[in-house]
């Protein structure tokens, strides 16, 4: 049995340590964020909810340390691993691995994977339940942070899940610690169905990502081939990509390969592009695709062209075509 003194001592010590826990959570978050080596835009594409360290409420840690059934801690302050936690919410399950990699490769902490839903699925493939990956990391050495010291061995829980899994977790949160028998059968059924649907959605989302990545890869590859012909040092990614997107349907329709585009480039086109760096269109690598399309589809191109038509005239002119407004 716990006596009141033991509990109050625990509370005092826990409250006193809260700033360190918070600082540790922030440190772990920043460490992982930097370890991803992403641009701001790429990071925003990966992590969908801002990561804020959360220190456990005193009430709930007391409940967990002294009153929860089936748990017994000899040194709750050190044994409880979710005093501070951070959560990374991503788009699809494949992206969870990106965060995991940084956690696993860090030399400054030891880690344990405390919850792996994949394992749970492997054991009970017919159950659809809470899915989230939980890691606990503990610093190997004391770390000085913001004038405090994070004592070696301080735990921080890291949750990684998808938006869909997060929605499920939020929805089912109130029932998480209840025994199955305490939840209505109908409710359990709905929760299981939601998770089953989540898995399907995740698969579809992943397919979408794969296709988008494939297209992005094609774009990137083609642009680097074009940049070998001329450096296009001042190009605007935004303008270039929007023109490319405008032309994509036509490139697909005629099954135009990157090779065909590159092979059709002639020296005089490069000379003319070099001479026209005062014009925005000629600063974009995509202008070389336009030469190809004008050459082969000079009447169809203006039908789909979304930019000002006049910009095309120099290309028509270079290729010896009379340009009709």
């Amino acid at each position: 049995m716990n006596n009141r003194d033991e509990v109050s001592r625990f509370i005092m010590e826990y409250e006193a340590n809260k700033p360190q826990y918070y600082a540790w959570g922030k440190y772990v978050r920043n460490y992982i964020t930097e370890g991803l080596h992403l641009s701001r835009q790429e990071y925003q594409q990966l992590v969908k909810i801002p990561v804020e360290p959360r220190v456990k409420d005193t009430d709930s840690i007391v409940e967990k340390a002294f009153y929860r059934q089936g748990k017994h801690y000899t040194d709750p302050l050190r044994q409880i691993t979710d005093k501070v936690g951070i959560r990374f919410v991503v788009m699809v399950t494949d992206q969870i691995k990106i965060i995991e990699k940084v956690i696993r490769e860090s030399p400054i902490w030891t880690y344990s994977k405390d919850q792996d839903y994949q394992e749970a699925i492997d054991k009970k493939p017919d159950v659809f339940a809470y899915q989230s990956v939980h890691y606990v990391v503990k610093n190997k050495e004391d770390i000085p942070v913001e004038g405090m010291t994070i004592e070696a061995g301080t735990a921080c829980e890291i949750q990684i899940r998808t938006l869909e899994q997060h929605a499920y977790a939020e929805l089912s949160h109130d029932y998480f610690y209840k025994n199955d028998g305490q939840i209505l059968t109908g409710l359990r059924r709905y929760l299981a169905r939601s998770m089953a649907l989540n898995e399907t959605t995740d698969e579809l989302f992943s397919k979408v990502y794969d296709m988008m990545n494939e297209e992005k890869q094609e774009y990137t590859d083609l642009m680097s081939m074009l940049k070998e012909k001329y450096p296009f040092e001042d190009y605007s990614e935004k303008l270039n990509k929007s023109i490319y997107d405008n032309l994509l349907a036509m490139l697909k329709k005629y099954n135009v390969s990157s090779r065909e585009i590159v092979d059709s480039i002639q020296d005089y086109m490069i000379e003319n592009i070099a001479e026209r760096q005062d014009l925005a269109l000629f600063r974009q690598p995509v202008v070389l695709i336009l030469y190809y399309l004008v050459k082969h589809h000079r009447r169809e191109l203006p039908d789909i062209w979304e930019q000002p038509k006049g910009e095309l005239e120099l290309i028509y002119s270079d290729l010896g075509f009379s340009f009709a407004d």
Partner: protein
Amino acid sequence: MAGEFINLKVKKVAIHKIFKREDKKILIPPEYNSQCSSLDNEARRALETRITRAFGNDSHSLKMKIEDTSEDSVYRNIVDFWGTDQSDAAFLEMSRQLTFLLAQAQNSRIYQDAIVVIVKGTTKAYNADFAAVIKAEIQDGFNIVESDGEQLLSYVNNLLLTRQQKLHKIGLFINNQVRGREIRQQDVDAFLFDSNTGESISDSKAEYFYKSFLGLDFREDADVITNNFYIATKKYINECVKESAERIRLQTALRNYLYINKDMYINSSQFAEGYMEGGEAKDVYLKAMEEAGIPSTDIRKDVSMIKRGKTRSLSFENSVKLTVPIEKFEEMVTVEEDGDGDTIIRIKGKYLDE
């Protein structure tokens, strides 16, 4: 046509002025500019695109035959210039000579004051030399008396940058010979653009420019080329147009284009624009015409070689044939497909016998 006007570059221009005659027998000496100029980027690009617009594929230019190669001809002046070091002085001298020849050719009081722009440059992927003479009539409000070289240049800049202003008449010569070698007549191609040619202008009105001045004439194979145009277009319609109603419509359009339309010239691109829907179909047609060797600029219309029966004969897949008089085809017969492989023909007239 091959890429005569690919990569066209203007290097220098010389601008002079010629005057309306008071007495048709007395030539008023042109006002010569004492220097030639490189245009600024904007004006140069504008001039380049204007020339390609006038002469490039799909344009209304004509490939011409060189007739006059005498000592005082435009041809000889240009070829001689190509044989020099092409210095500014040589270019200016040649441009003055051409301007004088034009003033000489304008031997009537109907010709207004005009600006003459002589252009030298290169064209084609391998930078062949070209020279062009542009005659543009002077717009109202341009003060001729006070104009000097700089004012003329800024006037030409404005002229070029105002799209509405047409370049009235242009003659253009390309040297296909390797630079430095002797240039023979067959090495030079000549082209004509005239913003006034069309149904209402008779050849004689333009003759002073292309014939008296430039020493050019129409090629003699207009009948062959017109016939080739007809055959290639017919073939395209029969082989590439899927819908039968559309095929019949285009066959009618082709006959109208050749026989009813009063234009003196025919042009693949004009036919496509006039009768076809959507860029994709036009591209397929123009490509087919290029592959058949049909020039992609104007062709002087001469239908004398086209075999033209008095009837059109429509064939159907089960050996049924329908013969319709060519005149008023559209008024007498309508042909439609019902989508199930049957054709519905409506004949305006009673059945007689067989």
